[in-house]
């Protein structure tokens, strides 16, 4: 009994139109990593938010070390020893990385904040997580992955009994994940209870001792990690058999098809330099690389989100000058950004409006899409991407993280693009939906559209891409054939810092 830190019994909460948690029980022991699993919208984040005082439960009891608790705010929860990394990165962009890690608990010296110590210790912490960065730079200077690491570093450093990680690995690559797991094991050995939410089943089995599965706000069951197979687990989560993922058919390589987009030597000094690439009609081009390797920057240049300082881009034969994303959209491009909270969702608008937004933008505001068409559009994608919502008028901000991601994907698919750039589109998406998205991408290629697919999951890229560009250190390291290459090949390119030879295509 004494090794149970946290116990939640009969948790219930409902939002307008949804019963997000219904009679959920959850138990966490000292020194265990307990995975919390379920489809998008299953209620995982909500359970966490109830525990940390963001939401107040309608019913249920929570015991921490045997004492009943009822945190009224995140602060209270933190004081009780519950440290949390929420699903969306929740840090302050205007502060430095170091300050973000230490704010609220800064070391003091003679009654004043001791900046030296803060910066030193922040650097140590980030190094421990495998990040060698300048922690005195503002957080906004770094990519979402580093931000995520910083928020993990913060949570880890707080002296807590319970550590909650809500999809901490969604934008990390394998190296970072390995580092994170090392840290988690260390903490576990110190007797912490860790709640770990993820959609990567491999990671679940790699690090967790026990798992709890939710579906539609209800508890499906609690299992020992060793006592359940992956397939069983998926079946439990989704509620039906999942085989699609294992028999995806890659689109044929369109070697003869015309080039739809060509970039030569594009770059932004200091960020990424001298990237040349082309993509053919009907082709799926993968982008692999470690985090911070410059994939997002490249995609943003191609779409006009950031201005290109050198080099040129052309569509077909015409040179293209992109001043704003709208120019790219007008040329039949679409871009599903990596950071959905910052660049994706319009939180207070409805799902319908969010989906219609990009289409409407190309038409201009004087030619509105009729309500009825908007509604149809929304309904079509809600069904196609199985977005979990009572109706299309729900605010996007109230959807679960994965479902928000699907809405953004829908926004771009609705523009019917010739070239779709997807930057980590499967971030935070459950395994069923992931397979669905991959299927959609391949289908689009078969229809003669082109797709640029950025992902940190190598197997996902290899499974889908015709050609893969490997990025390293803010430059293009190699271009490999998607049909023949293996994970090991790509890892070798990433690791081989000395060699920069281009693999034959």
């Amino acid at each position, binding site marked *: 009994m004494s090794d149970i830190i946290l116990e939640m019994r009969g948790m219930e909460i409902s939002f307008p139109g949804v019963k997000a948690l219904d009679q959920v029980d959850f138990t966490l022991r000292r020194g265990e990593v307990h995975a919390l699993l379920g489809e998008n919208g299953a209620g995982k984040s909500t359970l966490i938010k109830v525990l940390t005082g*963001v939401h107040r439960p309608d019913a249920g009891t929570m015991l921490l070390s045997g004492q009943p608790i009822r945190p009224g*705010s*995140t*602060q209270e*929860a*933190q*004081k009780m020893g519950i440290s*949390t990394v*929420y699903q969306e990165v*929740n*840090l*302050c*962009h*205007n*502060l430095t990385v170091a*300050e*973000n890690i230490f*704010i*609220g608990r*800064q070391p*003091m010296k003679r009654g*004043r*904040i001791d900046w*030296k110590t803060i910066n*030193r210790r922040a*650097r*140590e912490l980030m*190094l*421990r997580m495998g990040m*060698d960065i300048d922690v005195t730079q*503002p957080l906004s200077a770094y990519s979402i992955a580093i931000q995520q690491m910083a928020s993990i570093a*913060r949570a880890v450093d707080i002296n807590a009994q319970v550590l909650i990680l809500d999809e901490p690995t969604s934008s990390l690559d394998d190296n970072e994940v390995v580092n994170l797991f090392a840290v988690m094991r260390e903490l576990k050995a110190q007797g912490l209870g860790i709640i770990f939410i993820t959609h990567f089943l491999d990671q679940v089995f790699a690090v967790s001792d026990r798992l709890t599965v939710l579906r539609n706000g209800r508890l499906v069951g609690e299992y020992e990690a060793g006592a359940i197979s992956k397939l069983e687990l998926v079946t439990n989560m989704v509620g039906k058999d999942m085989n699609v993922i294992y028999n995806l058919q890659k689109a044929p390589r369109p070697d003869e098809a015309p080039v739809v987009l060509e970039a030569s030597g594009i770059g*932004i*000094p*200091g*960020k990424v330099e001298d990237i040349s690439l082309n993509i053919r009609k009907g082709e799926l081009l993968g982008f692999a690389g470690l985090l911070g390797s410059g994939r997002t920057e490249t995609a943003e240049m191609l779409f006009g989100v950031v201005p290109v*300082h050198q080099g040129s881009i052309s569509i077909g034969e015409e040179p293209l000058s992109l001043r704003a994303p709208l120019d790219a959209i007008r040329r039949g491009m679409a871009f599903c950004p990596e950071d959905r909270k910052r660049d994706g969702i319009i939180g207070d608008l409805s799902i319908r409006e969010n989906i219609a937004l990009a289409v409407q933008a190309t038409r201009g505001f004087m030619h509105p899409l009729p309500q009825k068409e908007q509604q149809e559009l929304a309904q079509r994608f809600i069904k196609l991407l199985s977005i979990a919502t009572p109706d299309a008028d729900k605010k996007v901000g109230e959807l679960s993280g994965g479902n928000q991601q699907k809405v953004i994907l829908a926004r771009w698919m609705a523009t019917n693009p010739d070239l779709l750039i997807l930057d980590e589109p499967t971030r935070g998406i459950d395994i069923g939906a992931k397979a669905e998205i991959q299927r959609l991408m391949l289908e689009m290629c078969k229809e003669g559209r082109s797709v640029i697919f950025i992902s940190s999951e190598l197997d996902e890229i290899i499974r889908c891409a015709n050609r893969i560009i490997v990025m390293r250190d803010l430059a293009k390291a190699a271009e490999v054939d998607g049909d023949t290459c293996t994970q090991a090949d790509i890892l070798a390119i990433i690791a081989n810092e000395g060699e920069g030879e281009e693999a034959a295509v």
Partner: protein
Amino acid sequence: MPDIHSRTLGHRERLRALLTNPRYLMVYATIGIFLLIYLFGALLYGSKGFTSVRTFMLFFSDNAYIGISAVGMTLVLITGGIDLSVAAVASLTGMIIAYGTTVLGLHPLVCILIALLAGVGLGALMGACIQYLNVPPFITTLTGMFFARGVTSLISRESISIKHSMIDALAGFKIYLTWPNAQGEWVKIKPVASIDLNTIAFLVVIVIGAIILQRTRFGRNVYAIGGNEQSASLMGLPVARTKVLVYSFNGLCSVLAGIAYVLYVKSGWNLSLQGAELDVISACVIGGVMLSGGVGYMFGTLFGVLLKATIPAIITFNGAMNSWWAKIFTSVLLLLFIMIQRAVIASSQRTRRK
């Protein structure tokens, strides 16, 4: 693990890092423009005494109440809020002191105490309203402004002058600036320049404000809230307490500004300091504080105040501008300031990319 201590910077390097830190750019831009405008004034009106020590000291002493209020305002603006009640509260302070000492015969210190209670209380109340009732700061403090002005009118609709030896002494306190003449005696410089209590108070409050912002947890929480209030709250920072405190502190600054104003004109009047809240806000913004929150420095605010102070000085030295030309001139200068600021920042962003 690499040796971290080896990366500790030397003094020179740290200075260079400070000077090239892009985060201080707005502040540098403000200082630069201040120097530019000062030079401009010096060229045009140097012969009339624009460059005299006295004129320079007057920048401080004539704007002390704006500066003191700007310190509190800087904090408020950094949290992403705004406070329109500052001038009204300062005016109320003046009236409380005037009515208390002159009509009721109370000791000024008692009146100041009452004013402090009123000002800080109103600040706390507004902060609570903003935090707990979620009423936008603009509206809350606008109501607070109406209220403070209203109470001031209720106390007395006539202006009341203050005759009290303590106030006289404080207002009359001056350190004359002197220099050695040919005989080596220390004499007052001409035209007479002095440092008065308000100037000292202004500088002291600025320094205190800077320390609060940079060296206390409270100050850092202010930045965090301005950066992203929701995140700050999820990080477990005491958002509610900080915000209420910020508005209370601003109330305190308003009262101090009111006291400075009392030392300046020794009277209370319900129409005094009309529209001064915008002077305070624009001084902060010119000093690089972002109204959207999360960005700003006390040092920038100091120069923002000085920069704003140069405009009326130049207008007075010009001596031929009527009200409407003065208004247009003021707005053109304002436009100029922000354009230069924009340009500096844009160009630095460009060079930083390279």
